[in-house]
């Protein structure tokens, strides 16, 4: 593999930059607070990993498990529905000519540019009126909207050669059949990429649950771990970090699992 050795060296150097903060996180969960705030990037001696884990899992009668379950529910549902909805929308933009196509395409982006912090109050009022406050709907509904997904879907659909669609239409397949049977398999890589990215961003969504949820038992992990405090409300950093490691862990496992599906696209109908 000599031809790629220069690339390999560059990548290894770059990887150090990407991996160091994560490395620090991993070593920090072996420390107690005193060790955590000493100048050392080696794991803690003595090792406090198991104490930290025990304290995190036992915190407030195991509320951690509730948070974990909530996060899975919010992120799985949100990512799958959101990307599916985006795939439908992307398909429409790719396949059809219709009145207002360009306008809608541009307006979606325009509206998405209003920062969420600015519209928190009206959204809160709307959710209050619909009695969504402190229910999963307050987290799920916004997560079903994946604007980035819609736009990438358009580009993914564009990469599917026209002949694929033409071949299907000659066979007399209905549009929905084309979408499900022929379309989706052809954009599978893109679909998985988006689900993966959406999953992570919903999983790590902090602000919306903070404002919209009123009970600790409904919190997702990322919000929950910030409530791991000492009795007077100050964060206990070794526990926050340990909890956050277990917050990230599922995201890593999911990535490894999904990676298997990353292989060059084959076009049904072209080959």
């Amino acid at each position, binding site marked *: 593999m000599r031809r790629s050795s220069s690339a390999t060296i560059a990548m290894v150097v770059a990887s150090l930059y990407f991996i160091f903060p994560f490395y620090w996180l991993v070593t920090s969960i072996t420390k107690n607070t005193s060790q955590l705030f000493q100048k050392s990037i080696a794991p803690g001696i003595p090792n406090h990993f198991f104490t930290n884990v025990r304290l995190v899992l036992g915190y407030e009668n195991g509320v951690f498990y509730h948070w974990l379950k909530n996060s899975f529910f919010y992120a799985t549902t949100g990512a799958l529905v959101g990307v599916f909805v985006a795939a439908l929308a992307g398909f429409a933009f790719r396949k059809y000519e219709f009145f207002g196509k360009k306008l809608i395409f541009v307006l979606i982006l325009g509206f998405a540019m*209003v920062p969420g*912090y600015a519209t928190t109050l009206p959204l809160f009022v709307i959710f209050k009126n619909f009695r969504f406050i402190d229910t999963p709907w307050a987290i799920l509904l916004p997560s079903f909207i994946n604007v980035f997904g819609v736009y990438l879907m358009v580009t*993914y659909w564009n990469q599917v*050669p026209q002949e694929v669609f033409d071949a299907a239409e000659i066979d007399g397949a209905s549009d929905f059949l084309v979408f499900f049977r022929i379309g989706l398999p052809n954009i599978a890589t893109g679909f998985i990429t988006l689900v993966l990215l959406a999953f992570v961003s919903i999983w790590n969504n902090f602000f919306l649950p903070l404002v919209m949820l009123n009970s600790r038992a409904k919190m997702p992990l990322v919000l929950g*771990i910030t409530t791991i405090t000492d009795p007077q409300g100050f964060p206990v950093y070794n526990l926050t970090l340990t909890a956050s490691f277990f917050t990230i862990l599922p995201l890593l496992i999911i990535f490894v699992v999904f*990676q298997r599906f990353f292989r*060059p696209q084959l*076009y049904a109908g072209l080959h």
Partner: protein
Amino acid sequence: MIRKRRSRLALRAYLFLAPFLALFSFIVIYPIVLGVRLSLYGQRGARMWYVGFLNYRNIFTDARFWEAFKIPLFLLLVQVPLMIFLAILIAFVYERVPRKEAAIYRFIHYLPYTIPAIVAGIVWSYIFSDSMSPFRPLLDALGMMGVRILNREHVPLVLLVIILWEFTGYTAFVVFSSLLAIPREYAEQAQIDGATFWQTAFFIKLPLIRGVIVMLFIFNIIGALQVFNEPWMLQTLVVLPPNYTPAMYIYNSAFAYGRFTYAIAMGLVLASITFLISLYVLRTASRQLLVQR
């Protein structure tokens, strides 16, 4: 006959669009419309009174709002192009190195994206702390003994380091996944014609995925103009003005000063500016993306 077919097709298009548009109208457009109305009000606590366009007039003379654009401008000119360029390079390297190796790199580059902002804040504030930074010995060796790592002047550079760390891998990943969709024959044909790997990459493949690159530019322009998390997390180390970025000013106005209606007005102005800046890119994008058939 043709018109009838077209309108039937249009109907189907709306059918495919309906779920997204319905959700989008309810969760995004409706709050913004309500917000537009609220932005015409003065507010103190729950008390609101109509002021017309006063909030907007105030924004245009509010120097603090306009000063806040220095950081986004810096990110727009430096971070966004740099990151997208690096991400494209990395994505091609994924293709070039052996598959197993590429999978490991992708995993490593994806790591930062998974780390929640609140945790990234703790980690980076450790890395940039004067007493414990792993870079301290390096700085000391360079004769910068006792120099504070993080004063206010260094913040833009530090932001660059953090944002590149956070999103380069993510961006490379998006580029890579669309490279995968390029039919293999194109590249094979080019290589048979004698093109090198990098020639094929930049002259054959890159143009094929320019739609994705354009999209990445647009979303990173939005990200740069609305930068919030990264400067916010650095506040454990250095005091930043409440208007360090437009998004921080909006956040502070709403949640620290309780001036929600003013925050909404600023949010709408910021969105309009973002929109105008992206418009050029967007016009090219919609021409390319919405292929006329």
